[in-house]
């Protein structure tokens, strides 16, 4: 069964450093998302991406964040200058349809630890 993959599974970085989290969505999916989950808390929406542009972003997704689909398969989340509070699990998700009409498939996540 096709699945979303994410690399790395765990990233440790120092405050102020840039990180890039990578995702490979399911191949025929058109909509891509990033979410984060701080340990023990709820899943929070960051950004959705469709047709090579951001379709929606949350308040969390400030100027320090950016997303890119550099080729036909990868979808990346960049954090320009990490802060301690960016420590969380970051999930990539993809779907074939607009969220209102279909399920999202989540990847296994990247645990980001900022020290």
């Amino acid at each position, binding site marked *: 069964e096709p699945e979303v993959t994410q690399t790395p599974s765990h990233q440790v970085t120092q405050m102020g450093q840039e990180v890039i989290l990578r995702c490979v969505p399911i191949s025929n999916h058109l*909509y891509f*998302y990033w*979410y984060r989950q701080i340990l023990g*808390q*709820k*899943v*929070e*929406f960051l950004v*959705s991406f*469709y047709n090579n542009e951001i*379709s*929606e972003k*949350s308040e969390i997704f400030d100027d320090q964040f950016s997303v890119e689909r550099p080729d036909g398969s990868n979808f990346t989340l960049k954090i320009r200058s990490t802060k301690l509070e960016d420590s969380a699990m970051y*999930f990539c998700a993809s779907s074939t349809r*607009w*969220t*209102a009409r*279909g*399920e*999202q*498939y*989540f*990847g*296994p*996540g990247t645990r980001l630890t900022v020290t």
Partner: protein
Amino acid sequence: GQQVMQIPQYQHVQEGEDFTTYCNSSTTLSNIQWYKQRPGGHPVFLIQLVKSGEVKKQKRLTFQFGEAKKNSSLHITATQTTDVGTYFCADIANSGYALNFGKGTSLLVTP
């Protein structure tokens, strides 16, 4: 986006007992999705409810959407240890692109 409130936050049951989690909103929801997250895992889609008063079943799981589309519930009959995890409801933001998750209900099942 809309805020969905989930109760209870935690539930500890003996294997074989039933379990219910509730999701409530102060505003009308267009539709609602339910996800399960096992400990250390990622959210996995369970179901989407769209119609007022809708009831859907998946084996021992029963999902309901309220008549006013302001609440939803997930009921598990005769829990098993494999049901352990956190159950989230998620509503769709007005734009249709974002999922707004509730805080989830963590279920612990002891044999």
